[in-house]
């Protein structure tokens, strides 16, 4: 299928499709950077003398605070699960992943309700110790440290998943070597186990830090000024789209810097375990007091990151459901579901285009373009949204000028004012999620299988139907599911780009919570969390039986 004749062999339908897709998906972020060439001196002087240092310092402290905390939580959990055998280990394996289902803005407002002056915790303290207002100090959750805690509680699974795989992939013979050489187990931990897992741990932390940079809901709700809240404020408060885009460009540069650091730390990982078989790790059976406190320690993040907030949400929802469960709620649910479904299909189709294009035409320009589009996951939703608004409103103005001149009619905001804008931003941001799954699936179909099928007399379309579709089915389904849930939870881009009078569960939850109607927000929040559990179940299933995939690979 590969055309190799002639010097323009790389110029074919695949190339054109991929170039077009890449241009459309990357245009918003590209425009954000172009904005740098239109200096907004006045507004920057104002920002510089007032809030800019807050934006920078708070964003960096938030990201690194989250980074450190998720490394601690995730690594400890991964170590316990990968290396110890204890009662409840099997259940904990998936319980630990549950906080992933919880968007940060939802956990943030739930804890605000829990820890408020009138909330159950403080009320209980006052009643037990007969305190009055002002008698005691209680930490304010609506602060930068509070935001770090909230984000870490829901983002630690990134580190946990990667570190767990890293720990269990280390062959047990490494530990046996250390033992036979008379090396103590603590030295083995610090000299071998942790250095080997370091790239995986840092990669997980980098993913969590990107989410922290991108977070809008939590910091906005807590009143912490960061880049993302600054972008909103500059645009909607000061009314300067270009300055907002410039702030967005600055934020993206921070993320790019983080990406580079992460890449540098990971450079060596691909050499590790080359030619070494992954072996079954013998987990140490815990006895005595350890058998009690290890499961206990593992439960702590689950309790605070999932069980407690869900109980609070259930409690609120049970009070308010009768007046909330109206046609408005069903509309919200329907809007969210079909929007997420369209976005998931679009992203997966694009991912298939890129993945197959890369496989069939492994040329430099195509490789480069696929690499560019998969960087979308690192760019905050706010940034892509700003870029999309600029690009699409320009396009709409041109179209309207054109139609008014030629046909004497105004078609309205066909791109920037419709769901198209949202779908574009979602595809751009979540394409990497879909690509990752599709690529994994495609890697299982070795090129020799295509050759084998063809030599056995199958035509390309038959190969697609008889070899690729059955082998790719699970990958495509999990890609669909993951993008679907990510879109359902997405907040900042949806806030910026949703068409007039169009609301989703995430937006409504945030609006209600911002209006201090915490109880009313519980029902849509619960709906989001319940859908969010689906990928957790999927991940658990995939983590439980990696051996089958390995068998197919080998």
């Amino acid at each position, binding site marked *: 299928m590969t055309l190799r004749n002639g010097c323009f062999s790389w110029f074919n339908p695949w190339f054109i499709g991929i170039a077009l897709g890449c241009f459309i998906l990357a245009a918003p972020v590209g425009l954000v950077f172009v904005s740098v060439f239109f200096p907004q001196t006045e507004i920057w002087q104002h920002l510089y003398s007032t809030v800019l240092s807050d934006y920078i310092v708070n964003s960096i402290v938030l990201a690194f605070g989250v980074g450190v905390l998720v490394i601690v939580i995730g690594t400890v959990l991964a170590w316990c699960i990968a290396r110890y055998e204890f009662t409840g280990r099997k259940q904990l394996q998936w319980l630990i992943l549950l906080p992933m289902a919880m968007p940060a803005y939802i956990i943030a407002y739930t804890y605000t309700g829990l820890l408020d002056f009138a909330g159950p915790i403080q009320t209980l303290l006052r009643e037990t110790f007969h305190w009055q207002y002002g008698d005691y100090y209680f930490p304010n959750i609506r602060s930068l440290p509070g935001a770090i805690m909230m984000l870490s509680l829901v983002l630690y699974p990134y580190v946990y998943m990667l570190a767990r795989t890293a720990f269990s992939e280390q*062959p047990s013979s*490494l530990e046996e*070597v250390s033992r*036979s*050489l008379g090396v103590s187990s603590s030295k083995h931990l610090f000299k071998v186990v942790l250095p*080997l897992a370091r790239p995986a741990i840092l990669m997980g932390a980098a993913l969590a830090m990107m989410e922290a940079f991108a977070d809008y809901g939590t910091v906005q709700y807590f009143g912490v000024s960061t880049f993302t809240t600054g972008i909103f404020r500059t645009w909607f408060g000061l009314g300067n789209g270009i300055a907002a885009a410039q702030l967005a460009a600055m934020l993206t540069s921070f993320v790019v810097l983080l990406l580079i650091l992460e890449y540098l730390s990971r450079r*060596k990982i691909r*050499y*590790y375990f080359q030619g070494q078989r992954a072996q079954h790790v013998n987990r140490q059976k815990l006895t005595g007091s350890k058998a009690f406190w290890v499961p206990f320690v593992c439960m702590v993040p689950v309790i605070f990151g999932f069980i407690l907030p869900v109980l609070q949400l259930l409690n609120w929802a049970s009070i308010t459901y009768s007046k909330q469960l109206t046609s408005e709620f069903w509309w919200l649910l329907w809007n969210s579901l079909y929007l997420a479904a369209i976005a998931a299909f679009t992203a997966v189709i694009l991912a298939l285009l890129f993945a197959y294009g890369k496989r069939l035409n492994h040329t430099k320009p195509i490789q480069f373009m696929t690499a560019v589009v998969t960087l979308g996951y690192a760019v905050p939703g706010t940034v892509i949204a700003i870029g999309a608004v600029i690009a699409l409103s320009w396009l709409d103005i041109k179209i309207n000028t054109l139609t008014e001149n030629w046909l004497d009619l105004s078609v309205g905001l066909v791109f920037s004012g419709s769901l198209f804008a949202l779908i574009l931003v979602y595809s751009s941001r979540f394409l990497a999620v879909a690509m990752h799954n599709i690529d994994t699936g495609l890697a299982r179909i070795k090129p020799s299988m295509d050759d084998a099928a063809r030599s056995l007399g199958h035509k390309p379309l038959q190969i697609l139907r008889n070899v690729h579709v059955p082998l790719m089915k699970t990958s495509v389904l999990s890609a669909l599911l993951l993008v679907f849930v990510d879109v359902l939870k997405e907040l900042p881009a949806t806030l910026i780009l949703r068409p007039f009078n169009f609301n989703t569960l995430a937006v409504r939850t945030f609006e209600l919570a911002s209006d201090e109607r915490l109880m009313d927000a519980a029902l849509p929040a619960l709906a989001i969390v319940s859908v969010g559990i689906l990928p957790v179940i999927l991940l658990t299933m995939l983590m439980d039986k990696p051996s089958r995939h390995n068998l197919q690979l080998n």
Partner: protein
Amino acid sequence: MLSLNNVSVAYQKRDVVQDVTFELGVGQIGCLLGPSGCGKTSLLRAVAGFEKIAKGQIYLRKKLVSASHNHLQPEKRRVAVVFQDYALFPHLTVAQNIAFGLHQQSSAQRLQRVTELLLLVGLPGYESRYPHALSGGQQQRVALARAMAAKPDLLLLDEPFSSLDAELRDELAKELRAILKHEKTTALMVTHDQHEAFAMADVIGVMNKGRLLQWTDAYTLYHRPANRFVATFVGDGVFLSATVDNNIKLNSALGVFPIKTTSGFKQGDKVVFLVRPDDIIHDDESETLAKVVDRSFQGSHILYQLELQHVDQPRVLCLALSHHDHPLGDLIGIRLDLEHMIVFADNGDLV
């Protein structure tokens, strides 16, 4: 140096090693040879201390290290292991890997020992390379150097050549033996390949189904196997059945042969005797004819499979010089040239 007394190893109450007894002297290279699943690796891991033993005792330097209720931790045994996959630490350089077990020495001493070992294993100048940049054979030598660095009392090697190309194996086996002998290391290795065992070991133990069947040198294994399993597992050959006649002679498809009167067989006994390919001589003058049913050209020789012209048409192997080129179906003359008879009672049991 190492001595095992009636050692049994069990996994989930199923014995994988049963009643193994042997001794390995200082500086000797021993080898456990057997098909996969025979328990040889479990026995090696028990010696290293990674597995506890169910019965018996293991002594190192006359000190008890393993018994059913007595288990010395592997880190205290001074037993080093070269693993099948080498288990090099991928994030450490060659020098750091080799020095990993030298934690009680000064850095100058460590440096000296690392340099010395790299020279010994033929990799001088490789100190700062990483394992992934080495070939399989080089990785093996680094793993060997790491294991020998702290001068262990005993070196264990688990299938040391299995991850290497066939052409490399012979060469490396010779080199490895030279290195071990140079360092006067006592070593015990495990393999399923008899050629490796012959090339490396002073003493070889053949194992099957968890039992040690024979513990002796290569020559004795080949020429005086203790039972039918050892005889078939070591070297090529076929068993021909025969009966003992009234003169206490063997009556077989290849003729009548005397056996030692001390063998204990009596008239009428059904027996089998071992015929190796080099025991059958191709001789055009001979009156005993056999039909060529299969042949494989091996350069200087051709290995023929021959069907004897006898009632039950038994088959034998014959190694003939390759200019004696006979097509399939030919009848060729052969004669038996047995230096000594290897005879077992024919009870159908291979072990």
